[in-house]
């Protein structure tokens, strides 16, 4: 077998068999899944129906017996003032609280609402408070309209919900567009690449340092060429990353479809507030439909394909440089001086994500998506927005390939000297000398 393959296999299996990897691969996606599912689960949990005593001096709530599933029991305002109503709630266990609306001499709804109090035993829950606020607000608005001589039903009938559909003109026709989703996909993908690149590049670096400090490296390079050792390590660790990515995708798909089939996703919005704020409900429903609709307009397999390419490209480019940095030191603590120039380009690209998303085909975005040191992030930010010219993609990909071949070549030269150099802390000047050494 080719020694390069033997090395890559060892790098791969020794990491995959590691307990940390197994934990990370299983717990990681589960944690992400949990983050998605648990809030939905909780918001779906039935709240206990609450019973409230109501003293309505202003008769604003007149006739309202329930807000969602919570029921109201009215006390006669002529018999109970605030004090005695509070003691009534205290005495009777079945009541969870007291809603007190003060009297108002001239019937000013604003005065009433400013002085309305909700007393409760323990926490009454943010949803109920919000529902009461909404209901009172709506009633007060109607009251104000009446005071001003306007029929509330007239206003209700003339209220118009506007949802402009965003359409992007494409070559084939037009398709729905959703800016927030594009931003989420672009930023999400590039952030993921950012994390993966540094996580796995650091593993390469640590591996190189480990080989140096355990003094195995000279034994290794009597059997294989330093370049083979370097590339075997880089490719083996890339395999680990790919496997982790596949596990993540598989797990997410499973969790998503399981959650979807038991109705945890997508259903919560319409169910949580039945009979509540109808207007908002329709709005969220429309947005949700729009998201689903526009998700369909993305070429997901194509995006994943580009994602894997740019992730691998970025990883190979930076991984080789991290390996060179690792070979130049004796301990991980000494890598600091090399870390800043290696981490800054991607960090800056990530920080420039917002201006790039505002103008995905502007000069900044185009240039950053061509330069190999930033293109893995910048291109992933641009791609979901569309409008990236084919030649731009081709050029960016070619430059990235040239870029990582270049960094690998440079790194291999530094590496083959660095791994045999002990003791002295290498400076940039030393690295330059090593680079030129025959």
């Amino acid at each position, binding site marked *: *077998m080719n*020694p390069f393959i*033997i*090395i890559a296999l*060892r790098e791969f299996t*020794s990491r995959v068999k590691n307990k940390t990897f197994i934990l990370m691969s299983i717990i990681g996606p589960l944690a992400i899944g949990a983050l998605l599912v648990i809030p939905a689960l909780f918001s779906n949990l039935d709240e206990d129906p609450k019973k409230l005593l109501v003293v309505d001096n202003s008769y604003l709530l007149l006739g309202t017996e329930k807000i969602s599933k919570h029921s109201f029991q009215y006390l006669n305002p002529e018999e109970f003032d605030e004090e005695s109503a509070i003691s009534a709630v205290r005495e009777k266990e079945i009541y969870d609280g007291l809603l007190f609306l003060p009297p108002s001499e001239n019937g000013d709804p604003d005065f009433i609402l400013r002085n309305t109090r909700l007393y409760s035993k323990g926490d009454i829950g943010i949803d109920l408070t919000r529902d009461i606020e909404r209901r009172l607000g709506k009633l007060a608005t109607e009251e104000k309209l009446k005071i001003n001589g306007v029929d509330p039903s007239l206003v209700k009938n003339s209220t118009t919900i506007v949802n402009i559909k965003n359409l992007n003109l494409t070559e084939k026709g037009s398709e729905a567009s959703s800016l927030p989703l594009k931003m989420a996909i672009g930023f999400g993908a590039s952030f993921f690449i950012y994390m993966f690149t540094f996580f796995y590049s650091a593993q390469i670096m640590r591996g190189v340092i*480990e*080989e140096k400090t*355990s*003094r*195995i490296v*000279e*034994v*290794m*390079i*009597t*059997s*294989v*060429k330093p370049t083979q050792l370097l590339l075997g390590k880089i490719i083996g660790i890339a395999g680990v990353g790919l496997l982790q990515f596949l596990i993540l995708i598989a797990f997410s798909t499973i969790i998503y479809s399981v959650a979807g089939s038991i109705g945890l996703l997508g259903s919560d919005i319409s169910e949580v507030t039945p009979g509540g704020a109808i207007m908002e409900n329709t709005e969220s429903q429309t947005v949700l439909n729009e998201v689903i609709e526009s998700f369909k307009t993305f070429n997901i397999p194509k995006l994943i394909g580009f994602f894997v390419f740019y992730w691998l490209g970025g990883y190979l480019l930076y991984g080789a440089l991290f390996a060179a940095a690792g070979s130049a030191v004796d301990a991980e603590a000494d890598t600091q001086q090399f870390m800043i120039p290696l981490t800054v380009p991607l960090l800056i690209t990530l920080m420039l994500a917002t201006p790039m998303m505002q103008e995905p085909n502007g000069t900044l975005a185009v240039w950053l998506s061509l330069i190999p040191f930033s293109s893995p992030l910048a291109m992933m930010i641009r791609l979901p927005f569309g409008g990236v010219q084919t030649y731009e993609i081709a050029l960016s990909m070619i430059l990235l390939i040239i870029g990582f071949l270049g960094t690998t070549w440079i790194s291999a030269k530094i590496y083959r000297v660095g791994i*045999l150099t*002990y003791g002295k802390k290498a400076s940039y000047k030393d690295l330059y*000398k090593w680079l030129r*050494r*025959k």
Partner: protein
Amino acid sequence: MNAIQSFGIDKQYENHVALHPLDLSVPEGSVFGLLGPNGAGKTTLLRIINQIISPDNGSVSFYGQKIDSSDSRHIGYLPEERGLYKKMKVGEQSMYLAQLKGLSRNEARKRLHWWFKKWGLETWWDKKVEELSKGMAQKIQFITTVLHEPKLLIFDEPFSGLDPVNAALIRDEMLRIRKEGATIVLSTHRMESVEELCSHIALLNHGEKILDGTVNEIRESHRNGNFRLSYRSNEPITLSLPNQVEMSQNLRDFNKGICIAEIQSMKLNSSEIISALAPQVDTIRFEEIIPSMNDIFIKSVEK
């Protein structure tokens, strides 16, 4: 034939010359001692032979052919800076290194089991490398160096960190392997193992070869006409010496009743001297003092 022959190889680093142009021949079947003080260029030379670094000029041939990367299959190298992957299991690690030398999995396993059984290491197969003692790790490294049965073995300080028992174990294996036809290059500071093991040596200093040849030749060429006579007597006896013979010292030995005379002569041989001196005293022993490799080493380096 020469296992290794170098033609004018040199190596220069940014601020110093590691190796001046060097011609060196390692005869096939020899145990070749590569000697020299620290920083003499030994490790540079060994790395060039192992193609870890390339010389600035000159070339190296391996069994008559210009050396290339495929020859690494026929070379076993135990570098001075050696180690193992700490987190790997001993067996796994040995299999890995054997496969990198081109052995198939089956062949590697078979040979490793043979060695592990021979040295009683079987129970260590599934232990982690970090649990090994230093001596134990050295043994594993030795095994993985010789496992692919190379034609040329290169050991850089093979005995460092070994107790006498394990050092003897390794030494005996080297001699056995040599008997089976391999050539061995040994770089060491331990002069007694040089005299014990080596048939040939080369001495390097400041990147230059200052001495080479067979051990016998070198010791012969460093004869300096010193002789030692031990005789029975409580007090030193004044000896009458033939012409061209000088007395360096004549003292009572630590042992009671024995005296030792040291005599210097470049002209007369030992039988001429003994026949002149023997009748004068009750002789116990008479010998020519041939300088040890240690003496030759120190003398040559200090020159």
